[in-house]
Protein backbone atom coordinates (compact mmCIF):
# COMPACT_ATOMS: atom_id res chain seq x y z
CA UNK A 1 0.00 0.00 0.00
CA UNK A 2 2.98 2.32 0.58
CA UNK A 3 3.67 2.41 -3.16
CA UNK A 4 0.62 4.61 -3.76
CA UNK A 5 1.08 8.39 -4.11
CA UNK A 6 -1.40 11.21 -3.89
CA UNK A 7 -2.40 12.76 -7.20
CA UNK A 8 -4.80 15.33 -8.59
CA UNK A 9 -6.32 12.71 -10.88
CA UNK A 10 -5.39 14.47 -14.10
CA UNK A 11 -3.66 12.53 -16.87
CA UNK A 12 -0.19 13.43 -18.05
CA UNK A 13 0.11 14.59 -21.67
CA UNK A 14 1.59 11.28 -22.87
CA UNK A 15 -0.76 9.18 -20.77
CA UNK A 16 -3.79 7.39 -22.24
CA UNK A 17 -6.95 6.20 -20.49
CA UNK A 18 -7.35 2.45 -20.98
CA UNK A 19 -10.11 1.19 -18.71
CA UNK A 20 -12.38 2.31 -15.91
CA UNK A 21 -14.41 0.42 -13.34
CA UNK A 22 -16.46 1.67 -10.40
CA UNK A 23 -17.18 -0.05 -7.11
CA UNK A 24 -13.60 -0.91 -6.17
CA UNK A 25 -12.34 -1.53 -2.67
CA UNK A 26 -8.61 -1.61 -1.93
CA UNK A 27 -7.02 -4.04 0.53
CA UNK A 28 -3.46 -3.61 1.78
CA UNK A 29 -2.46 -7.25 1.59
CA UNK A 30 -5.19 -8.92 3.64
CA UNK A 31 -5.91 -5.76 5.67
CA UNK A 32 -8.74 -3.33 5.14
CA UNK A 33 -7.97 0.28 4.14
CA UNK A 34 -10.06 3.47 4.32
CA UNK A 35 -10.38 3.33 0.49
CA UNK A 36 -13.57 1.35 0.36
CA UNK A 37 -15.60 2.51 -2.59
CA UNK A 38 -14.14 4.20 -5.61
CA UNK A 39 -13.48 4.22 -9.32
CA UNK A 40 -10.43 2.45 -10.64
CA UNK A 41 -8.85 3.96 -13.74
CA UNK A 42 -6.23 2.21 -15.79
CA UNK A 43 -3.98 4.41 -17.91
CA UNK A 44 -0.99 3.52 -20.00
CA UNK A 45 1.26 4.51 -17.09
CA UNK A 46 -0.64 4.36 -13.85
CA UNK A 47 -3.40 2.77 -11.90
CA UNK A 48 -5.58 5.55 -10.41
CA UNK A 49 -8.22 5.17 -7.70
CA UNK A 50 -10.72 7.96 -7.05
CA UNK A 51 -13.07 7.97 -4.06
CA UNK A 52 -16.75 8.11 -5.00
CA UNK A 53 -17.68 10.58 -2.27
CA UNK A 54 -14.58 12.68 -1.76
CA UNK A 55 -13.44 13.70 -5.22
CA UNK A 56 -10.20 15.14 -3.83
CA UNK A 57 -9.13 11.73 -2.54
CA UNK A 58 -7.24 10.34 -5.52
CA UNK A 59 -4.44 7.74 -5.36
CA UNK A 60 -2.08 6.60 -8.09
CA UNK A 61 0.22 3.64 -8.52
CA UNK A 62 2.84 3.65 -11.30
CA UNK A 63 2.49 0.54 -13.45
CA UNK A 64 6.27 0.16 -13.32
CA UNK A 65 5.86 -0.86 -9.66
CA UNK A 66 3.77 -3.87 -10.57
CA UNK A 67 5.40 -7.29 -10.81
CA UNK A 68 2.40 -9.36 -11.80
CA UNK A 69 -1.33 -9.89 -11.40
CA UNK A 70 -3.38 -12.68 -10.01
CA UNK A 71 -7.07 -13.22 -10.38
CA UNK A 72 -9.22 -14.55 -7.55
CA UNK A 73 -12.71 -15.67 -8.51
CA UNK A 74 -15.75 -14.53 -6.63
CA UNK A 75 -17.27 -16.84 -4.08
CA UNK A 76 -20.17 -16.96 -1.65
CA UNK A 77 -20.39 -13.45 -0.19
CA UNK A 78 -17.05 -12.53 -1.69
CA UNK A 79 -16.38 -10.28 -4.66
CA UNK A 80 -13.88 -11.18 -7.34
CA UNK A 81 -10.44 -9.73 -6.71
CA UNK A 82 -7.28 -8.93 -8.57
CA UNK A 83 -4.14 -9.36 -6.52
CA UNK A 84 -1.43 -6.89 -7.57
CA UNK A 85 2.08 -7.87 -6.59
CA UNK A 86 4.44 -4.92 -6.20
CA UNK A 87 8.12 -4.09 -6.21
CA UNK A 88 9.57 -2.61 -3.01
CA UNK A 89 8.76 1.07 -2.56
CA UNK A 90 11.40 3.46 -3.89
CA UNK A 91 12.87 5.57 -1.07
CA UNK A 92 12.46 9.00 -2.69
CA UNK A 93 8.86 8.83 -3.84
CA UNK A 94 6.30 11.63 -3.52
CA UNK A 95 4.04 11.52 -0.44
CA UNK A 96 1.35 8.87 -0.35
CA UNK A 97 -1.55 7.83 1.86
CA UNK A 98 0.48 5.22 3.77
CA UNK A 99 4.02 5.85 4.96
CA UNK A 100 5.09 2.22 5.11
CA UNK A 101 3.49 -1.18 4.81
CA UNK A 102 4.48 -4.77 5.51
CA UNK A 103 2.67 -6.12 2.51
CA UNK A 104 4.25 -6.50 -0.91
CA UNK A 105 0.86 -6.70 -2.59
CA UNK A 106 -2.54 -5.05 -2.65
CA UNK A 107 -5.90 -6.49 -3.56
CA UNK A 108 -8.56 -4.81 -5.67
CA UNK A 109 -12.02 -6.01 -4.80
CA UNK A 110 -14.63 -5.65 -7.56
CA UNK A 111 -17.90 -4.94 -5.74
CA UNK A 112 -19.75 -4.16 -8.97
CA UNK A 113 -18.07 -6.89 -11.08
CA UNK A 114 -16.24 -6.10 -14.33
CA UNK A 115 -13.09 -7.87 -13.13
CA UNK A 116 -12.57 -10.04 -16.21
CA UNK A 117 -12.48 -7.19 -18.66
CA UNK A 118 -10.38 -5.06 -16.35
CA UNK A 119 -7.94 -7.87 -15.74
CA UNK A 120 -7.52 -8.39 -19.45
CA UNK A 121 -6.83 -4.70 -20.09
CA UNK A 122 -4.57 -4.56 -17.10
CA UNK A 123 -2.47 -7.46 -18.32
CA UNK A 124 -2.29 -5.98 -21.81
CA UNK A 125 -1.12 -2.67 -20.46
CA UNK A 126 1.53 -4.28 -18.32
CA UNK A 127 2.76 -6.24 -21.31
CA UNK A 128 2.95 -3.12 -23.40
CA UNK A 129 5.25 -1.35 -20.92
CA UNK A 130 4.40 2.13 -22.27
CA UNK A 131 6.03 3.81 -19.29
CA UNK A 132 9.46 2.67 -20.46
CA UNK A 133 9.10 4.39 -23.81
CA UNK A 134 8.28 7.81 -22.41
CA UNK A 135 10.84 7.99 -19.65
CA UNK A 136 11.81 11.49 -20.67
CA UNK A 137 11.72 12.61 -17.09
CA UNK A 138 15.39 13.14 -16.11
CA UNK A 139 14.73 12.27 -12.49
CA UNK A 140 13.21 8.96 -13.46
CA UNK A 141 16.04 8.33 -15.90
CA UNK A 142 18.55 8.86 -13.18
CA UNK A 143 16.63 6.55 -10.98
CA UNK A 144 16.59 3.92 -13.67
CA UNK A 145 20.35 4.29 -14.16
CA UNK A 146 20.91 3.80 -10.47
CA UNK A 147 18.71 0.76 -10.34
CA UNK A 148 20.26 -0.48 -13.59
CA UNK A 149 22.82 -3.14 -12.79
CA UNK A 150 21.17 -4.40 -9.65
CA UNK A 151 17.61 -3.96 -10.95
CA UNK A 152 18.13 -5.89 -14.14
CA UNK A 153 19.39 -9.06 -12.51
CA UNK A 154 17.81 -9.04 -9.13
CA UNK A 155 18.36 -12.19 -7.18
CA UNK A 156 15.93 -13.99 -4.90
CA UNK A 157 12.23 -14.49 -5.16
CA UNK A 158 11.61 -11.14 -6.82
CA UNK A 159 14.10 -12.07 -9.52
CA UNK A 160 12.42 -15.38 -10.14
CA UNK A 161 9.03 -13.74 -10.16
CA UNK A 162 10.25 -11.24 -12.70
CA UNK A 163 11.68 -13.91 -14.90
CA UNK A 164 8.43 -15.87 -14.78
CA UNK A 165 6.49 -12.74 -15.55
CA UNK A 166 8.67 -12.00 -18.52
CA UNK A 167 8.26 -15.50 -19.87
CA UNK A 168 4.52 -15.28 -19.49
CA UNK A 169 4.49 -12.02 -21.35
CA UNK A 170 6.43 -13.54 -24.20
CA UNK A 171 3.97 -16.40 -24.40
CA UNK A 172 1.09 -13.94 -24.36
CA UNK A 173 2.60 -12.03 -27.19
CA UNK A 174 3.23 -15.15 -29.26
CA UNK A 175 -0.34 -16.22 -28.80
CA UNK A 176 -1.80 -12.88 -29.73
CA UNK A 177 0.43 -12.71 -32.82
CA UNK A 178 -0.66 -16.21 -33.80
CA UNK A 179 -4.34 -15.39 -33.45
CA UNK A 180 -3.90 -12.19 -35.35
CA UNK A 181 -2.97 -14.34 -38.35
CA UNK A 182 -5.96 -16.55 -37.81
CA UNK A 183 -8.37 -13.65 -37.74
CA UNK A 184 -6.82 -12.41 -40.95
CA UNK A 185 -7.45 -15.81 -42.45
CA UNK A 186 -11.05 -15.72 -41.29
CA UNK A 187 -11.51 -12.37 -42.96
CA UNK A 188 -10.09 -13.68 -46.18
CA UNK A 189 -11.97 -16.98 -46.07
CA UNK A 190 -15.17 -15.46 -47.37
CA UNK A 191 -13.32 -13.94 -50.29
CA UNK A 192 -11.64 -17.27 -50.99
CA UNK A 193 -14.93 -19.11 -51.13
CA UNK A 194 -16.26 -16.42 -53.41
CA UNK A 195 -13.21 -16.68 -55.61
CA UNK A 196 -13.43 -20.44 -55.87
CA UNK A 197 -17.05 -20.12 -56.87
CA UNK A 198 -16.20 -17.68 -59.64
CA UNK A 199 -13.51 -19.99 -60.93
CA UNK A 200 -15.88 -22.92 -60.76
CA UNK A 201 -18.47 -20.93 -62.69
CA UNK A 202 -15.94 -19.94 -65.34
CA UNK A 203 -14.80 -23.50 -65.78
CA UNK A 204 -18.38 -24.64 -66.01
CA UNK A 205 -19.06 -22.11 -68.74
CA UNK A 206 -16.07 -23.24 -70.76
CA UNK A 207 -16.78 -26.88 -70.21
CA UNK A 208 -16.38 -27.88 -73.84
CA UNK A 209 -12.95 -26.35 -74.13
CA UNK A 210 -11.42 -28.29 -71.24
CA UNK A 211 -10.13 -31.75 -71.80
CA UNK A 212 -7.18 -32.29 -69.51
CA UNK A 213 -7.80 -34.54 -66.56
CA UNK A 214 -6.29 -32.19 -64.06
CA UNK A 215 -8.54 -29.34 -64.95
CA UNK A 216 -11.55 -31.55 -64.68
CA UNK A 217 -10.41 -32.77 -61.32
CA UNK A 218 -9.78 -29.23 -60.16
CA UNK A 219 -13.24 -28.33 -61.25
CA UNK A 220 -14.75 -31.15 -59.24
CA UNK A 221 -12.79 -30.05 -56.19
CA UNK A 222 -14.08 -26.55 -56.55
CA UNK A 223 -17.62 -27.70 -57.11
CA UNK A 224 -17.55 -29.83 -54.02
CA UNK A 225 -16.31 -26.82 -52.09
CA UNK A 226 -18.35 -24.04 -50.71
CA UNK A 227 -21.89 -23.62 -49.51
CA UNK A 228 -22.99 -20.15 -50.61
CA UNK A 229 -25.18 -19.33 -47.61
CA UNK A 230 -24.42 -21.68 -44.77
CA UNK A 231 -27.14 -22.06 -42.16
CA UNK A 232 -25.78 -20.50 -38.98
CA UNK A 233 -27.10 -19.80 -35.53
CA UNK A 234 -27.06 -16.11 -36.44
CA UNK A 235 -29.33 -16.57 -39.43
CA UNK A 236 -31.60 -19.31 -38.12
CA UNK A 237 -31.64 -18.88 -34.39
CA UNK A 238 -30.97 -21.72 -32.01
CA UNK A 239 -32.66 -24.96 -31.12
CA UNK A 240 -34.76 -27.17 -33.30
CA UNK A 241 -35.37 -24.71 -36.10
CA UNK A 242 -31.65 -24.28 -36.57
CA UNK A 243 -31.10 -28.04 -36.63
CA UNK A 244 -33.95 -28.53 -39.06
CA UNK A 245 -32.54 -26.02 -41.50
CA UNK A 246 -29.15 -27.59 -41.03
CA UNK A 247 -30.57 -31.02 -41.81
CA UNK A 248 -32.00 -29.68 -45.05
CA UNK A 249 -28.68 -28.17 -45.97
CA UNK A 250 -26.93 -31.45 -45.21
CA UNK A 251 -29.21 -33.45 -47.44
CA UNK A 252 -28.60 -31.03 -50.30
CA UNK A 253 -24.86 -30.99 -49.91
CA UNK A 254 -24.35 -34.68 -49.24
CA UNK A 255 -26.57 -36.32 -51.83
CA UNK A 256 -24.06 -36.02 -54.66
CA UNK A 257 -20.97 -37.13 -52.73
CA UNK A 258 -22.92 -40.01 -51.16
CA UNK A 259 -23.87 -41.32 -54.57
CA UNK A 260 -20.26 -41.09 -55.65
CA UNK A 261 -18.91 -43.11 -52.75
CA UNK A 262 -21.36 -45.95 -52.79
CA UNK A 263 -24.28 -44.52 -50.85
CA UNK A 264 -22.78 -44.53 -47.39
CA UNK A 265 -20.38 -42.31 -45.47
CA UNK A 266 -19.19 -42.45 -41.90
CA UNK A 267 -20.31 -39.57 -39.69
CA UNK A 268 -16.70 -38.47 -39.22
CA UNK A 269 -16.28 -38.16 -42.98
CA UNK A 270 -19.53 -36.23 -43.20
CA UNK A 271 -18.32 -33.87 -40.51
CA UNK A 272 -15.07 -33.13 -42.34
CA UNK A 273 -16.76 -32.76 -45.68
CA UNK A 274 -19.50 -30.47 -44.50
CA UNK A 275 -17.14 -28.25 -42.57
CA UNK A 276 -14.80 -27.99 -45.51
CA UNK A 277 -17.71 -26.93 -47.65
CA UNK A 278 -18.90 -24.38 -45.13
CA UNK A 279 -15.55 -22.64 -45.12
CA UNK A 280 -15.62 -20.46 -42.04
CA UNK A 281 -19.01 -21.04 -40.46
CA UNK A 282 -17.84 -24.26 -38.82
CA UNK A 283 -20.30 -26.71 -37.35
CA UNK A 284 -19.84 -28.32 -33.98
CA UNK A 285 -20.02 -32.14 -33.90
CA UNK A 286 -23.00 -31.82 -31.60
CA UNK A 287 -24.97 -29.64 -33.99
CA UNK A 288 -24.17 -31.98 -36.85
CA UNK A 289 -25.37 -35.00 -34.91
CA UNK A 290 -28.55 -33.24 -33.83
CA UNK A 291 -29.24 -32.17 -37.39
CA UNK A 292 -28.64 -35.72 -38.63
CA UNK A 293 -31.12 -37.08 -36.09
CA UNK A 294 -33.80 -34.92 -37.69
CA UNK A 295 -33.16 -36.27 -41.20
CA UNK A 296 -35.73 -39.01 -40.89
CA UNK A 297 -38.44 -36.86 -39.30
CA UNK A 298 -38.07 -34.34 -42.11
CA UNK A 299 -38.36 -37.13 -44.68
CA UNK A 300 -35.16 -36.12 -46.42
CA UNK A 301 -33.41 -38.38 -48.93
CA UNK A 302 -30.56 -39.21 -46.56
CA UNK A 303 -30.62 -40.99 -43.20
CA UNK A 304 -28.53 -41.45 -40.11
CA UNK A 305 -27.85 -45.08 -39.34
CA UNK A 306 -26.15 -46.74 -36.41
CA UNK A 307 -24.61 -50.17 -36.81
CA UNK A 308 -24.68 -52.77 -34.04
CA UNK A 309 -21.03 -52.02 -33.37
CA UNK A 310 -21.85 -48.36 -32.68
CA UNK A 311 -20.42 -47.02 -35.92
CA UNK A 312 -22.62 -44.22 -37.17
CA UNK A 313 -23.03 -43.46 -40.85
CA UNK A 314 -25.11 -41.27 -43.10
CA UNK A 315 -26.61 -43.09 -46.06
CA UNK A 316 -28.98 -42.51 -48.94
CA UNK A 317 -32.51 -43.74 -48.44
CA UNK A 318 -32.31 -45.47 -51.81
CA UNK A 319 -29.27 -47.28 -50.52
CA UNK A 320 -31.10 -50.15 -48.88
CA UNK A 321 -29.61 -52.95 -46.86
CA UNK A 322 -30.43 -55.48 -49.58
CA UNK A 323 -28.37 -53.39 -51.94
CA UNK A 324 -25.39 -53.40 -49.55
CA UNK A 325 -25.67 -57.13 -49.02
CA UNK A 326 -25.92 -57.87 -52.73
CA UNK A 327 -23.02 -55.62 -53.64
CA UNK A 328 -20.76 -56.92 -50.87
CA UNK A 329 -21.53 -60.54 -51.74
CA UNK A 330 -20.71 -59.83 -55.37
CA UNK A 331 -17.37 -58.26 -54.46
CA UNK A 332 -16.40 -61.13 -52.16
CA UNK A 333 -17.41 -63.72 -54.75
CA UNK A 334 -15.36 -61.95 -57.39
CA UNK A 335 -12.21 -62.08 -55.27
CA UNK A 336 -12.82 -65.47 -53.68
CA UNK A 337 -12.33 -64.05 -50.20
CA UNK A 338 -11.79 -60.59 -48.71
CA UNK A 339 -10.70 -58.92 -45.51
CA UNK A 340 -12.14 -55.53 -44.52
CA UNK A 341 -8.89 -53.86 -45.65
CA UNK A 342 -9.00 -55.55 -49.03
CA UNK A 343 -12.65 -54.69 -49.54
CA UNK A 344 -11.99 -51.06 -48.67
CA UNK A 345 -9.25 -51.02 -51.29
CA UNK A 346 -11.34 -52.74 -53.96
CA UNK A 347 -14.44 -50.62 -53.42
CA UNK A 348 -12.70 -47.44 -52.18
CA UNK A 349 -14.51 -46.74 -48.96
CA UNK A 350 -13.14 -46.65 -45.44
CA UNK A 351 -12.01 -49.84 -43.68
CA UNK A 352 -14.53 -49.21 -40.92
CA UNK A 353 -17.39 -49.10 -43.41
CA UNK A 354 -16.04 -52.12 -45.23
CA UNK A 355 -16.08 -54.08 -42.00
CA UNK A 356 -19.64 -53.02 -41.24
CA UNK A 357 -20.77 -54.06 -44.68
CA UNK A 358 -19.09 -57.45 -44.35
CA UNK A 359 -20.64 -58.04 -40.93
CA UNK A 360 -24.09 -57.03 -42.17
CA UNK A 361 -23.77 -59.40 -45.08
CA UNK A 362 -22.57 -62.17 -42.78
CA UNK A 363 -25.57 -61.57 -40.56
CA UNK A 364 -27.80 -62.03 -43.59
CA UNK A 365 -26.14 -65.41 -44.08
CA UNK A 366 -24.41 -64.65 -47.38
CA UNK A 367 -20.85 -64.66 -46.10
CA UNK A 368 -18.92 -66.75 -43.62
CA UNK A 369 -15.74 -65.98 -41.79
CA UNK A 370 -12.27 -67.40 -41.41
CA UNK A 371 -10.84 -66.06 -38.18
CA UNK A 372 -7.09 -66.59 -37.89
CA UNK A 373 -4.09 -64.83 -36.43
CA UNK A 374 -3.65 -63.15 -39.81
CA UNK A 375 -7.01 -61.46 -39.46
CA UNK A 376 -10.67 -61.83 -40.19
CA UNK A 377 -11.34 -62.99 -43.74
CA UNK A 378 -14.74 -63.38 -45.32
CA UNK A 379 -15.75 -66.04 -47.85
CA UNK A 380 -18.93 -66.63 -49.80
CA UNK A 381 -21.14 -68.75 -47.57
CA UNK A 382 -20.66 -72.13 -49.20
CA UNK A 383 -22.17 -73.78 -46.11
CA UNK A 384 -25.54 -72.49 -47.20
CA UNK A 385 -25.14 -72.70 -50.97
CA UNK A 386 -23.36 -76.04 -51.36
CA UNK A 387 -24.93 -79.32 -50.18
CA UNK A 388 -23.41 -80.74 -46.99
CA UNK A 389 -22.46 -83.93 -48.81
CA UNK A 390 -21.33 -83.34 -52.34
CA UNK A 391 -23.06 -85.56 -54.85
Amino acid at each position, binding site marked *: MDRFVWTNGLLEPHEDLKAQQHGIKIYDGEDKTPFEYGTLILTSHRLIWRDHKRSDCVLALPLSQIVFLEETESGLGKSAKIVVHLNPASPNRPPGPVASSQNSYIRLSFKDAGETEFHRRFTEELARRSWEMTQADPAQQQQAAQAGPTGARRAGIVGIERKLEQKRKETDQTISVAFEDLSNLMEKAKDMVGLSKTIAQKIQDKQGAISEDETVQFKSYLLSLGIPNPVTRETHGSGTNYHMQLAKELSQVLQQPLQECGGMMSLADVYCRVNRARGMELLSPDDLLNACKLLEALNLPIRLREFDSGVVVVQLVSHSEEEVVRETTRLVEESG*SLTAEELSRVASFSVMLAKEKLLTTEKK*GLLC*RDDTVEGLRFYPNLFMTKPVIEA
Partner: protein
Amino acid sequence: MAEFQWPWQYNFPPFFTIQPNKDTQAKQLEAWCLLVLSYCRHRRQYSLDVTDAQDSPLFHNKKIDRKLPLDAVYTVLEELRKKGNIEWTDPKKRNRCLIMWRTPEEWGKIIYQWVTSNGMNNTVCTTYELVNGDDTTSQEFHGMESWLLTRALQTLQLERKAELMGSEGVKFF
Protein backbone atom coordinates in the same frame (compact mmCIF):
# COMPACT_ATOMS: atom_id res chain seq x y z
CA MET B 1 -7.45 -99.46 -46.38
CA ALA B 2 -8.59 -97.00 -49.02
CA GLU B 3 -7.68 -93.34 -48.73
CA PHE B 4 -10.22 -91.38 -46.72
CA GLN B 5 -12.31 -89.06 -48.88
CA TRP B 6 -12.33 -85.65 -47.21
CA PRO B 7 -15.49 -83.62 -47.74
CA TRP B 8 -15.27 -80.31 -49.62
CA GLN B 9 -15.64 -78.36 -46.37
CA TYR B 10 -12.30 -79.73 -45.14
CA ASN B 11 -10.44 -77.51 -47.62
CA PHE B 12 -12.66 -74.47 -47.00
CA PRO B 13 -10.90 -72.26 -44.41
CA PRO B 14 -14.10 -70.90 -42.75
CA PHE B 15 -14.89 -74.51 -41.80
CA PHE B 16 -12.31 -74.14 -39.03
CA THR B 17 -13.93 -71.03 -37.48
CA ILE B 18 -17.20 -71.50 -35.62
CA GLN B 19 -19.60 -69.27 -37.55
CA PRO B 20 -21.46 -66.60 -35.55
CA ASN B 21 -24.48 -66.68 -37.85
CA LYS B 22 -26.77 -69.32 -36.34
CA ASP B 23 -28.08 -70.72 -39.61
CA THR B 24 -24.61 -70.96 -41.06
CA GLN B 25 -23.34 -72.50 -37.84
CA ALA B 26 -26.01 -75.19 -37.93
CA LYS B 27 -24.89 -76.23 -41.43
CA GLN B 28 -21.28 -76.08 -40.38
CA LEU B 29 -21.80 -78.26 -37.31
CA GLU B 30 -23.82 -80.72 -39.36
CA ALA B 31 -20.86 -81.05 -41.71
CA TRP B 32 -18.46 -81.45 -38.79
CA CYS B 33 -20.56 -84.20 -37.19
CA LEU B 34 -20.70 -86.09 -40.44
CA LEU B 35 -16.96 -85.71 -40.92
CA VAL B 36 -16.11 -86.94 -37.41
CA LEU B 37 -18.34 -89.99 -37.75
CA SER B 38 -17.23 -90.93 -41.23
CA TYR B 39 -13.59 -90.41 -40.28
CA CYS B 40 -13.90 -92.70 -37.24
CA ARG B 41 -15.84 -95.21 -39.25
CA HIS B 42 -13.17 -95.22 -41.93
CA ARG B 43 -10.55 -95.90 -39.26
CA ARG B 44 -12.82 -98.28 -37.31
CA GLN B 45 -12.25 -96.10 -34.31
CA TYR B 46 -14.51 -96.64 -31.29
CA SER B 47 -13.13 -94.01 -28.96
CA LEU B 48 -11.56 -90.61 -29.19
CA ASP B 49 -9.02 -88.83 -27.05
CA VAL B 50 -9.73 -85.10 -27.35
CA THR B 51 -6.12 -83.89 -27.10
CA ASP B 52 -4.87 -86.46 -29.59
CA ALA B 53 -7.77 -85.83 -31.92
CA GLN B 54 -7.12 -82.11 -32.04
CA ASP B 55 -3.68 -82.72 -33.51
CA SER B 56 -4.85 -85.50 -35.80
CA PRO B 57 -5.71 -84.75 -39.44
CA LEU B 58 -9.37 -84.84 -38.44
CA PHE B 59 -9.27 -81.41 -36.79
CA HIS B 60 -6.02 -80.14 -38.27
CA ASN B 61 -5.71 -79.54 -41.99
CA LYS B 62 -2.00 -79.02 -42.56
CA LYS B 63 -2.48 -78.29 -46.24
CA ILE B 64 -4.42 -75.08 -45.68
CA ASP B 65 -2.86 -74.55 -42.24
CA ARG B 66 -6.11 -74.48 -40.31
CA LYS B 67 -6.83 -76.14 -36.99
CA LEU B 68 -10.14 -76.31 -35.19
CA PRO B 69 -9.67 -74.59 -31.80
CA LEU B 70 -10.24 -76.69 -28.69
CA ASP B 71 -13.48 -74.98 -27.66
CA ALA B 72 -14.80 -75.56 -31.17
CA VAL B 73 -13.81 -79.23 -30.94
CA TYR B 74 -15.94 -79.44 -27.80
CA THR B 75 -18.80 -77.67 -29.57
CA VAL B 76 -18.71 -80.33 -32.27
CA LEU B 77 -18.44 -83.20 -29.81
CA GLU B 78 -21.28 -81.86 -27.66
CA GLU B 79 -23.39 -81.64 -30.78
CA LEU B 80 -22.58 -85.31 -31.43
CA ARG B 81 -23.42 -86.19 -27.84
CA LYS B 82 -26.84 -84.59 -28.21
CA LYS B 83 -27.43 -86.78 -31.24
CA GLY B 84 -26.38 -89.87 -29.25
CA ASN B 85 -23.26 -90.57 -31.27
CA ILE B 86 -20.73 -90.10 -28.50
CA GLU B 87 -20.57 -90.63 -24.78
CA TRP B 88 -18.03 -89.16 -22.40
CA THR B 89 -16.14 -91.77 -20.43
CA ASP B 90 -15.26 -88.95 -17.99
CA PRO B 91 -18.17 -86.48 -18.17
CA LYS B 92 -16.52 -84.04 -15.76
CA LYS B 93 -13.16 -83.66 -17.48
CA ARG B 94 -14.35 -84.58 -20.96
CA ASN B 95 -10.96 -85.93 -22.06
CA ARG B 96 -12.14 -89.13 -23.69
CA CYS B 97 -15.28 -90.27 -25.37
CA LEU B 98 -16.80 -93.40 -26.91
CA ILE B 99 -17.80 -93.05 -30.52
CA MET B 100 -20.79 -94.71 -32.06
CA TRP B 101 -20.93 -93.89 -35.73
CA ARG B 102 -23.95 -96.10 -35.66
CA THR B 103 -26.27 -96.14 -32.66
CA PRO B 104 -26.59 -99.48 -30.75
CA GLU B 105 -30.08 -99.93 -32.29
CA GLU B 106 -28.65 -99.60 -35.78
CA TRP B 107 -25.88 -102.05 -34.95
CA GLY B 108 -28.41 -104.49 -33.54
CA LYS B 109 -30.38 -104.37 -36.77
CA ILE B 110 -27.28 -104.95 -38.88
CA ILE B 111 -26.18 -107.90 -36.76
CA TYR B 112 -29.65 -109.41 -36.75
CA GLN B 113 -29.87 -109.01 -40.52
CA TRP B 114 -26.57 -110.88 -40.93
CA VAL B 115 -27.71 -113.58 -38.50
CA THR B 116 -30.96 -114.09 -40.39
CA SER B 117 -29.30 -114.13 -43.80
CA ASN B 118 -26.86 -116.77 -42.54
CA GLY B 119 -29.61 -118.92 -41.02
CA MET B 120 -28.26 -118.66 -37.54
CA ASN B 121 -31.60 -118.04 -35.89
CA ASN B 122 -32.22 -120.21 -32.87
CA THR B 123 -28.53 -120.91 -32.51
CA VAL B 124 -26.05 -119.93 -29.86
CA CYS B 125 -22.71 -118.32 -30.59
CA THR B 126 -20.02 -116.60 -28.63
CA THR B 127 -19.59 -112.89 -28.85
CA TYR B 128 -15.96 -113.46 -29.81
CA GLU B 129 -16.78 -115.47 -32.93
CA LEU B 130 -19.43 -112.93 -33.85
CA VAL B 131 -17.04 -109.98 -34.12
CA ASN B 132 -13.70 -111.72 -34.58
CA GLY B 133 -14.61 -114.93 -36.32
CA ASP B 134 -13.64 -115.71 -39.92
CA ASP B 135 -17.26 -115.56 -41.10
CA THR B 136 -17.68 -111.86 -40.32
CA THR B 137 -14.45 -110.37 -41.73
CA SER B 138 -16.39 -108.69 -44.54
CA GLN B 139 -18.97 -107.26 -42.12
CA GLU B 140 -18.93 -103.74 -40.79
CA PHE B 141 -19.25 -104.95 -37.24
CA HIS B 142 -16.11 -107.05 -37.53
CA GLY B 143 -13.68 -106.05 -34.82
CA MET B 144 -16.31 -104.14 -32.86
CA GLU B 145 -15.36 -103.41 -29.26
CA SER B 146 -17.20 -105.56 -26.78
CA TRP B 147 -18.88 -102.68 -24.87
CA LEU B 148 -20.65 -101.61 -28.05
CA LEU B 149 -21.51 -105.15 -29.07
CA THR B 150 -23.07 -105.78 -25.68
CA ARG B 151 -25.19 -102.67 -26.07
CA ALA B 152 -26.22 -103.64 -29.58
CA LEU B 153 -27.25 -107.13 -28.41
CA GLN B 154 -29.12 -105.62 -25.47
CA THR B 155 -31.30 -103.66 -27.88
CA LEU B 156 -32.06 -106.91 -29.68
CA GLN B 157 -32.88 -108.57 -26.36
CA LEU B 158 -35.44 -105.84 -25.67
CA GLU B 159 -37.06 -106.67 -28.99
CA ARG B 160 -36.92 -110.38 -28.06
CA LYS B 161 -34.69 -111.14 -31.01
CA ALA B 162 -31.78 -112.36 -28.95
CA GLU B 163 -30.85 -113.37 -25.46
CA LEU B 164 -27.55 -112.70 -23.83
CA MET B 165 -26.06 -115.69 -22.07
CA GLY B 166 -23.59 -114.32 -19.56
CA SER B 167 -21.18 -111.87 -21.10
CA GLU B 168 -19.68 -114.23 -23.65
CA GLY B 169 -22.54 -115.95 -25.38
CA VAL B 170 -25.72 -114.99 -27.21
CA LYS B 171 -28.68 -116.81 -28.63
CA PHE B 172 -30.60 -115.39 -31.58
CA PHE B 173 -34.28 -116.07 -32.18
